[in-house]
């Protein structure tokens, strides 16, 4: 739950989480979003266009990473601005034969990067990485505080 504005400090960590991803998650996202690009579900197609394998939709990673902020804010509609750059593809291994085994894990850490007293907003800067390598850069969510 978001704290009152005056109790927050720049540099304060709001939380961290790891989002696990399977190929099934990508198929689900493809269906829900309408983004049916086969690089997100077909290995031979992905490799054929020069990728190391099936990769997650950038928008899947962006959408999943912000959940840390939604939960902290207490109301997801408090996120008034959210942006990122996609820098590195998230390769998702095929774990179909071992149900429950993730094909990739994305680590998300949120830190307060800026506070705006006039607008009563906090900017949460997200560090989003896989095995220590950043996959999103300048991932920032601006939260309107009560």
């Amino acid at each position, binding site marked *: 739950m978001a704290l009152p504005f005056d109790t927050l400090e720049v540099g304060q960590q709001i939380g961290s989480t790891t*989002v696990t991803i399977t190929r099934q*998650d990508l198929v*689900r*996202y493809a*269906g*829900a*979003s*309408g*983004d049916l690009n086969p690089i997100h579900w077909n290995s031979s197609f992905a490799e054929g*266009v020069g990728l190391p394998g099936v990769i997650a939709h*950038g*928008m*899947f990673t*962006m*959408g*999943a990473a*912000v*959940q840390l*902020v*939604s*939960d902290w804010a207490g*109301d*997801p*509609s408090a*996120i*008034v*601005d*959210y*942006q*990122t*750059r*996609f820098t590195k593809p998230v390769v998702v291994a095929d774990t179909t034969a071992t149900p429950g085994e993730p094909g990739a894990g994305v680590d998300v850490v949120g830190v307060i990067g800026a506070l705006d007293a006039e607008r009563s907003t906090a900017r949460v800067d997200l560090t989003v990485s896989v095995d220590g390598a950043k996959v999103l850069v300048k991932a920032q*969510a601006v939260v309107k505080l009560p």
Partner: protein
Amino acid sequence: MTIDPTLQGRSYPAGDIYSVGREAIRDFARAVKATHPVHYDVAAATALGHSDLVAPPTFAIIVAQRADAQLIEDPSAGIDFSRVVHADQRFVHHRAIVAGDQLVAELHVDSVRAMGGGAMITTRAEISTVDGRPTATTTSSLLVRGEDQ
């Protein structure tokens, strides 16, 4: 294929209405692993002052990508979709998207920059309700890779 540099400044008027449904919000929320009850439970959403289920923060991408499709599928633009890479994305929300909204998006091509043999295209979708309430502004940069990239 070359990207037409005069694309910059082009706009596409609002196309079909996107009708926001409760199940679409629930499906999208599950797909991005969102767990907040305002995406699933109408009573939880109304308890926080919303008129119906609230869409997750990146839900507007559905409407934005439908608007982008007008440009990508426009033969005069010269864009090969299989060479498009999503480079960056921003959502500015003017109000929460809730179930029952009837949304339309007007697409603007804000910039086209040559990059190697390809181009970086920045589009902006102005999403509003069909009766004119500004809802979200989404900005997407799409890298169209050149033949040798």
